[in-house]
């Protein structure tokens, strides 16, 4: 991935090409057309969602594309948040995301630390085993993981209907471990040596040297952990059967049929808000493509 990060001085169309009027007009209009298309296709559906969120239901059903519906129904948002209890499921989603974040960070940092800094003799074996899980599509895990969570080894109680059922498996992300390990590899070894000479043990080295130096990668893992858990649907659907602890992604489809259209679309809009805000805040990170390597797991 590192190889593609460099920026080129030029692309296919040269500066002298640009000076030719034909190219200038042709490419210029191609850019305008593309921008219009991107606004219509990329932003359009979301703008429509925002409009629907405050449009009276009758207008959504009869004249969905009307620019000026009959009045603005702010009550949609209010009803969704309070009556349909989106606030409750919103909190569940935050809770699910926070726990998944913590478990991913714990496993990725400690695992990366062992593999990159401590390097015990058996580290290679562990690394190979972790790497191997990246070749296994998630679909294989679905049923056996469900049964494992249903009757976890050593524990007497089932984890079904507990947040732990989502939090713990989220930690098993080989992509995170490798990403953090790679970053730890790039830290200067001299600093570690100096800390050791000064008498820092493995815990001190981890907590006071390695982690503070790794803020950038911890940020990357954190953002993608939160986004991924906000998006997750199938796994929480399987293990969080009790509606009162379900996150938005699981709850929204089940309220679709029984909720007033305007209120339902307001709920969808609320569910989209946090990811959009995160995208706007961390745009550079998203657009750098760091997180796309995780896409292999599907």
């Amino acid at each position: 991935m590192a190889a593609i990060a460099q920026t080129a001085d030029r692309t296919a169309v040269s500066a002298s090409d640009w000076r030719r009027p034909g190219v200038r007009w042709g490419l210029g209009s191609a850019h305008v057309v593309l921008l219009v298309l991107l606004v219509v296709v990329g932003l359009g559906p979301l703008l429509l969602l925002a409009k629907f969120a405050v449009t009276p239901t009758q207008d959504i059903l009869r004249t969905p594309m009307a620019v000026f519906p009959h009045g603005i129904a702010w009550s949609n948002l209010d009803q969704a948040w309070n009556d349909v209890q989106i606030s409750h499921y919103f909190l569940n989603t935050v809770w699910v995301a926070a726990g998944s974040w913590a478990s991913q960070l714990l496993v990725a940092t400690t695992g990366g630390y062992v593999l990159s800094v401590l390097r015990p003799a058996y580290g290679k074996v562990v690394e190979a085993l972790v790497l191997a899980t990246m070749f296994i599509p998630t679909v294989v895990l679905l049923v056996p993981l469900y049964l494992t969570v249903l009757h976890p080894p050593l524990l007497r109680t089932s984890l079904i209907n507990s947040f732990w059922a989502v939090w713990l498996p989220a930690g098993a992300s080989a992509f995170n471990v490798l990403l953090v390990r790679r970053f730890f590899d790039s830290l200067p070894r001299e600093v570690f040596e100096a800390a050791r000479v000064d008498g820092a043990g493995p815990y001190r080295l981890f907590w006071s040297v390695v982690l503070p130096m790794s803020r950038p990668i911890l940020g990357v893992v954190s953002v993608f952990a939160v986004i991924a858990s906000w998006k997750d649907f199938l796994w929480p659907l399987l293990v969080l059967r009790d509606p009162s602890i379900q996150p938005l992604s699981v709850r929204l489809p089940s309220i679709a049929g029984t909720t007033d259209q305007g209120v339902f679309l307001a709920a969808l809009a609320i569910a989209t808000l946090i990811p959009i805000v995160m995208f706007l805040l961390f745009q550079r990170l998203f657009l750098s493509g760091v997180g796309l390597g995780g896409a292999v797991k599907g």
Partner: protein
Amino acid sequence: MTRNDVLAAPVTAPPGTRTDRPRRTPATALVTWVRRGGPHHLVFLLPTLVIFGVFSWYPIVRSVVMSFQKTNLAAPPRWVGWHNFVFVLHDPLLGTAVRNTLWFALLALIIGYPVPLVAAVVMSEVRRAKGLYSALAYLPVVVPPVVSVLLWRVFYDASPTGVFNTILGWVGLGPFPWLQDQTWAMPSLVLAATWSGAGGTVIIYLAALLSVPPELYDAAEVDGAGIWRKVWHVTMPQLRGVLFITLILQIIATAQVFLEPYLFTGGGPANATVTVLLLIYRYAFQNSLGGNYGAATALSLMLAVVLALFSLLYFRLTKSWSQ
């Protein structure tokens, strides 16, 4: 990578290795292991071992075991040999599911493969507000997939006053039945899936376009190549590796498509959108006779073997590509 390995070398080789090494007995080996901080290493490794062990390695092994067993939650599992595989292969729905999944993958390639490429090539020439272009392209990827499916389900309303039917009505087309029609349902699913996925591919292509060596364009210009020839004979060959990688990624993703058929149509109308993963889900979790976990794992295993070949190819390629 290599530079760091060199830097790290002194850490792995213990400094001041003793020349008068005592005879190695299990006891002394244990003592040196403890003295070198072995137990502390294990403490740090604990989260990885426990989490991966219980929630990744164990279930992977278990899925192989389970595919040869009859498992229900009441009685202890029973060995049944290849019975689960035979059951799955004789299920008349399997053929439908495989055909539908392939149809989905093919449509996703036709609709979703060229669009990001063309968009990225044009976008790479943008001189002002390039960030705006890529942000707009990526925006749908950020929307939670469940939300985008539920939103598109509203758009696909088959009545003449549905969103898409209203828009197409302006130019005198439709109304179309969209999700309610056997032929139209699958393309509708693919269209929505492409909307939520294409932005990621655009970002990959944009990064790859920046890494094309500028000298190649300079050389092509010296030889008198115009813009089209530069794009066709320089840009495209340089993107070959990335194009192949996104192709594999897309095949791996579309083979596991679940969310769209599950939420849009539930596999209907008349099983026209039942995919392999939906079938696995039905075996295990939507079975009125109780979960047929054996059949579900057998089918997942068969799918996984096919997909593992693709991901192996992907890792081989990305490895040679990033070096």
